[in-house]
């Protein structure tokens, strides 16, 4: 039923997205597309040392994919990279759990609203789109400064 898929939290994030829009400065950017439906997302990650100071994004797509990006922004901004990746792994596990995993609100915050999406295999990719882009963007942001440091030595 739509009640389990379209939780009020998801609709809220969709209609009133948090932190939407691409911002500067940023250390890494990634653009991901869902080839089956054409949904797209661009994510930028700004780092200060190992702390994520901003996750900015822009994209177009269904309520699930866009709300997921908004939740991601809220959850991961201000965390360390290690922390953020731990949350990311928990979210991916939830999405791949076929609706059998009880989500942990302490870790996932508003992300628990996506538990119902896991029961809809066709929509899991929508929910994960921004998270996969986030991983790539963060990896690029981390690769950038490391290269500079190596050059400096």
């Amino acid at each position, binding site marked *: *039923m*739509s009640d389990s*898929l*379209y939780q009020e939290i998801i*609709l809220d994030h969709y209609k009133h997205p948090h932190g939407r829009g691409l911002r500067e400065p940023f250390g890494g950017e990634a653009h991901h597309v869902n080839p*089956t*439906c*054409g*949904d*797209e997302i661009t994510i930028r990650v700004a780092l200060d040392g190992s702390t994520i100071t901003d996750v900015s994004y822009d994209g*177009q*797509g*269904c*309520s*699930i994919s866009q709300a997921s990006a908004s939740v991601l922004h809220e959850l991961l901004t201000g965390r360390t990279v290690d922390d953020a990746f731990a949350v990311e792994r928990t979210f991916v596990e939830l999405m791949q759990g076929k609706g059998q995993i009880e989500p942990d609100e302490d870790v996932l915050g508003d992300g628990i609203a996506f538990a119902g999406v896991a029961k*809809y295999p066709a*929509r899991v990719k*929508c929910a994960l789109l921004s998270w996969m882009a986030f991983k790539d963007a963060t990896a690029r942001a981390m690769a950038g400064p490391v290269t500079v440091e190596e050059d400096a030595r």
Partner: protein
Amino acid sequence: MSAPHSPLDVDRVRKDFPILERRLAGDHPLVYLDSANTSQKPTAVLDTLAEHYSRHNANVARAVHQLGEESTAAYEGARDKLAVLIKAPSRDEIIFTKNASEALNLVAHTLASGMADDPRFRLGPGDEIVVTEMEHHSNIVPWQLAAKRTGAAFRWFGLTDDGRLDLSTIGELINERTKIVSLVHQSNSLGTVNDVATVVARAREVGALVLLDGSQSVPHQPIDVTELGVDLLAFTGHKMVGPTGIGVLWGRRDVLDALPPFLGGGEMIETVEMTGSTFAPIPHKFEAGTPPIAQAIGLGAAVDYLTGIGLDRIHAHEQALTAYALEKLNAVDGVRIIGPNSTESRGGTVSFVVDGIHPHDVGQLLDERGVAVRVGHHCARPVCVRYGIPATTRASFYLYTTFDEIDALAAGLDQVKRFFG
């Protein structure tokens, strides 16, 4: 608005399709509006498949035993039925493939192979390939690959704002360098039925081949390949109440004779020596290996079923459905039709967008009411790009579609709007 008249007894037709009795989650009856994606199958086809496997199963054209003869007769009998369906001058001109994509790839690949004796059937630098912006990816990508392999130029017709081919530049687009024009008969996303005669006339002037993708037209209207005037026609079985795994390439005999072989293997040869091989005449030249036997026979049963009802009547029914659907959808505030907004030169496939609501969300909520539509770019992404939209929702009709089902779609859209409003 009361439901308009249809020449079909749809209630009776629906009894032939067991799946239409399915109840879905929430005990909703199935409202199947995704026949352009794949059609449902009547009992006659299902029984034919079961009977083939349970009573006649054997490989074709290789066995001297009784089952082999029965299987071969049924397989070749299906070829006869398809030849009659599209009024092919010869049964040998019907090539069985696994789907329409393979049929289109067969032509692109053999033209690009450079192996034809006649230079008219060899693509190379300086040659031009022409497609249209409304093609399914299966009629774009094979030609892009062929162009890359041969150095030929890849060109296309653009679209008008109302979902038609822009033929204003046809004189320049199809020119002396054009080797082949490959276009869709009826668009799978817009529903547009193209003006094939104008394209064929120009192609004739410059000696270019014309390949028509009939995947969305052969199931829905009477087809006469001679009247169409094209050189080649590709279509698929599963969209015309037949099984998956079977498609057809029809070509004029002289064209198919001139094309070099596609896949090599058993059955497509005349004689094989370690120093070289010679090839079977058509149709077997293009049917390497064990073909989809049961699927071809099942498609033959599908042809019998469709012609038993009458493709002219099916077409008239779908025209009535389309008129009704356009009226209903236009009456929903915030719904915009992507494609021709009248029944003139269009089929029963209607794409639309709902203002402010992504098609994925539209499709998901419709599904919860048992209404099955397709959402996305429908493997025709350039169409979405052309109209500046990420995706569409698409409802597509067939002989078993009812006016009530279109009402269910419209009512579903009202609810979708309330949900996201």
